């Protein structure tokens, strides 16, 4: 238990060590290909030098690929939003927690892999340089308020640290044989985080108030969802939406022509594909308390629905109601899986 001073190479040494000692059979981490960087599951210690654990790229939330992990030990090196999704899925009994080692590092924000392959964290200087090239952060990252690791096995701090990084862990076993030097978290870190948080919170407020204005009346709600084609991409890419059989794939939710005709009789006409509002409301209800606001749904949407803003508003509301922050702690019970005897008496 403790905090250690590390550098870039030490992260790779740590991963290599895990594989060599046989502590884990594979590591989910970002790696460099010939031209791009992508998430890989590495089993060969010899390939560790191709990894780019801190690469600020986000294509999909990799927690999604860990659902129903089996009995083999694996380690994952993920961003805070992915680590939060993993924590939520553990609570939802979708990930076994006893054989997964979660390593997460501070996130300065990510860019879309379409825009380039960068392997260094996006510090301020780096971000300026990118802005010069016309590359900006992903929308979800500009409004992200949880950019430091939640409760995970090993967290790596990169924000507010002048030289190298600081590694913090409760369990020293994975670090054995690395001979790391003890180090302290510098005092300036909190101020740096505060500064980032302030900027992001302002952006978030702006985004949420805008979508609330749009949602306030029925007509404008239609405006927000009008382009939906019910391709279900948002559901597919959501790390939290885990049902093995979705309602919208059962006969009740996936209407045949005759059933659509029956529905059409009731209202006079029916939009095809049907149930757009119902679909989004259902997803809202099922995911809101666990949404980690990673933005994967909006990026998967082929019709550019403002899903991120919608989720920011809705998940924010529901989680604030239960004073819950999804995925931040490993042992906090899910809001809809528990109750208190005296609470919410105003609900009518």
């Amino acid at each position, binding site marked *: 238990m403790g905090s250690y001073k590390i550098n870039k190479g030490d992260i790779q040494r740590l991963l290599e060590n895990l594989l060599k000692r046989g502590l884990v059979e594979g590591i989910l981490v970002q790696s460099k290909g010939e031209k791009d960087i992508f998430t890989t599951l590495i089993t060969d210690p010899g390939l560790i030098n191709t990894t780019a654990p801190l690469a600020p790229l986000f294509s999909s939330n990799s927690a999604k690929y860990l659902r129903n992990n089996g009995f083999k030990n694996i380690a994952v090196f993920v961003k805070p939003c992915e680590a939060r999704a993993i924590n939520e899925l553990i609570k939802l009994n979708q990930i076994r927690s006893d054989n997964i080692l979660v390593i997460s590092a501070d996130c300065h924000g990510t860019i879309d892999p379409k825009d380039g392959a960068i392997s260094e964290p996006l510090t301020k200087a780096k971000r300026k340089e990118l802005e010069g090239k016309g590359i900006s952060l992903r929308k979800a990252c500009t409004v992200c308020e949880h950019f430091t690791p939640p409760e995970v096995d090993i967290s790596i701090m990169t924000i507010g640290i002048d030289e190298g990084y600081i590694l913090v862990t409760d369990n020293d076993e994975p670090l054995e044989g690395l001979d790391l030097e003890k180090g302290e978290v510098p005092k300036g870190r909190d101020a740096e985080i505060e500064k980032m948080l302030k900027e992001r919170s302002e952006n978030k407020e702006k985004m949420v108030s805008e979508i609330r204005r749009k949602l306030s009346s029925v007509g404008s709600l239609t405006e927000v969802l009008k382009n939906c084609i019910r391709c279900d991409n948002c559901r597919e890419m959501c790390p939290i939406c885990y049902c093995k059989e979705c*309602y919208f794939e059962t006969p009740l939710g996936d209407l045949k022509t005759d059933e659509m005709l029956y529905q059409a009789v009731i209202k006079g006409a029916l939009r095809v594909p049907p149930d757009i509002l119902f679909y989004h409301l259902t997803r809202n209800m099922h995911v809101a308390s666990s949404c980690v606001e990673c933005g994967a749904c909006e990026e998967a949407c082929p019709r550019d629905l403002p899903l991120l803003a919608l989720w920011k508003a809705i998940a924010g*509301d529901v989680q604030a109601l239960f004073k819950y922050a999804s995925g931040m702690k490993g042992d906090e019970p899910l809001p809809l899986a528990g109750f208190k005897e005296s609470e919410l008496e105003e609900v009518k």
Partner: protein
Amino acid sequence: MTKKEEKVIEMDEKGDFEPKILGFLCNWCSYAGADLAGVSRYQYPPNVQCIRVMCSSRVDPMWILKALTDGADGVLIAGCHPGDCHYVEGNYRTRRRIAALKKILENYGLSDRVFLEWVSASEGKKFAEVITKVTNAIKELGPNPYKKRWEI
């Protein structure tokens, strides 16, 4: 349903709006409360169509959403008073679920159409009052905008 039948339900003879409200009543308290209201001859509006469920926590929030998007003017969920649930803790869970659901619907302007009430088996009078209150509240709100909106 034919067009003519539908009209009868929507409007009374004077052409005033008659809401169509869906009520989920728990078997052990609220349904018995409704029974008592009937036996005791308490008058209440006929706008609520009741569905008996074994516990208010049996009500999947999706049912409420389905009803609202398909055009129900309101949805009432009634169960035992907190602490009195036949299954010990069911209604505590209902309360959390409905609280979350209403929070979500606030963003869509539909939260005022969902009602959560506690009616025990001995509260026939309260049942009649609840139904009257809910019906009046929905009458004030007007028809569910999604009743005729087919484009979403």
